[in-house]
């Protein structure tokens, strides 16, 4: 586990979170350029998420479009006491991607696409210049890599494939209790390892 970030970095991260919240509030008031600013900040990460779930760039773009349309229409439902803006956007995008994944029954395609994903070289310009997200991604990948493979597997199946614990148990032929235990351990470890990153989002 890495040492905690310097106070200066945490201060910048929190200022950025406040900016995100202000952007959402501006969207509530009908500022389309605020939505554009949110898009500039998070479209690369969200597109990567949707692509990881769906394994298809066109589908991922449709999901991204739907997600931002939902943000535009339901920005007033955002509750800053419940989640950060980035997590709110992630949950919206993931939910739509998982819905599409289930409705189109392309789960089998996802595995292949997820395997191909590492070979994909589409790097977002936004991802290149956004140091915060680059650093967050680096930290997450590092901590995910520190998880035992079986724990990382169930967590990825739950998050990126939208599978329930029972579905994971069926698919992996692992007892449901074991799946739950692995999931619990994985999430708790990540929370502890990423404590400083999480703090920035609170």
């Amino acid at each position, binding site marked *: 586990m890495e040492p905690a970030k310097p106070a200066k970095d945490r201060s910048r991260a929190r200022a950025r979170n406040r900016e995100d919240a202000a952007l959402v509030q501006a969207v509530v008031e*009908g500022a389309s350029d605020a939505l554009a600013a949110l898009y500039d900040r998070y479209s690369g990460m969200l597109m*990567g998420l949707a692509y990881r779930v769906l394994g298809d760039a066109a589908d991922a773009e449709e999901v991204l*479009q739907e997600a931002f349309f939902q943000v535009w229409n339901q920005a007033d439902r955002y509750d800053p006491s419940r989640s950060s803006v980035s997590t709110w956007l992630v949950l919206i995008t993931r939910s739509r991607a998982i819905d599409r994944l289930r409705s189109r029954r392309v789960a089998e395609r996802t595995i292949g696409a997820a395997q191909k994903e590492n070979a994909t070289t589409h790097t977002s310009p936004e991802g290149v210049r956004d140091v915060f997200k680059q650093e967050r991604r680096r930290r997450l990948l590092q901590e995910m890599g520190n998880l035992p493979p079986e724990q990382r597997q169930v967590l990825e199946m739950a998050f990126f494939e939208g599978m329930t614990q029972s579905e994971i148990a069926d698919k992996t032929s692992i007892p449901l209790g074991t799946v739950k235990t692995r999931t619990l351990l994985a999430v708790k470890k990540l929370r502890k390892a990423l404590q400083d990153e999480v703090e920035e989002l609170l």
Partner: protein
Amino acid sequence: MTDSHHPPDQPTPEDRLVLDLVEELEPRTGAAAEGSGERLRREYLETLGMLAYAAEPAAPSAGLKRRILASISPPAPSATGGELPTASFRPPGAAAPARTPAWALALAAALALALVGFSGWQFVQLVGQGKEIARLTADLEALAGERADLAQMRARLAESRARVAMLASPGAEYCLLKPAVGDEAAADAWGVFVVASDRGRWFLRVAGLAPCAQGRTYRLWLVTDEAVVHAATFDGHPDAASIELTDDEVPRDIRAVAITLESGEPAGPTGPRVLYADRAMRLL
């Protein structure tokens, strides 16, 4: 940390919170979240949200942002206001722009409406003027046609007046033209030749002459003491109706008038004489 292959017999509220969050992944999760404390729930939720960063960032296509912004923009401002009005976002910390007073907005709206109304009125006027121009152009063309007809009528009237003046002239002399003896083809033909020396004009009217055969014409000759002058060339009428001829070249001392049937364009009468008149035949 051990990886147990059996679920806990008595899961803690925190365990239930985590499992529920993983299952549902919604900002508002149920009773387990409330029982475990809001901060704990929030920390786990943010942890799960960060999993998205495990996916490699991908660049959407260049047009996606434009499509999204286009889909949220109202098509046009309406009187009732758009469902998704767009406003301008001001970054936190930036100076607030001066707020436009409501009366100024109302005035601007009124001016805009007036401008739109005026433009509409001008457009209607322009369309009306275009139609009026088209109508006047048609009238002008009709008048031009009528003017040409009027000129023709004036020319005919002037000619008629000149003829009446000639016929009523004190110097007018009338000669009756009769068929030549032995010409059976022109047995029913007749003519009147009028000459007004004081007005320098002659007039001929003949009737009953059949059309000439191919290559032949009737020729009018005016006979004086010194010469036989060719005055006109003409053809007969299919219905043997009357034919009128006039000219302003009048030789002096016309002694006789003759119409012959000629081939070609002879300098003097060579063909058979069809109608003929001399002084003995003068009427006046």
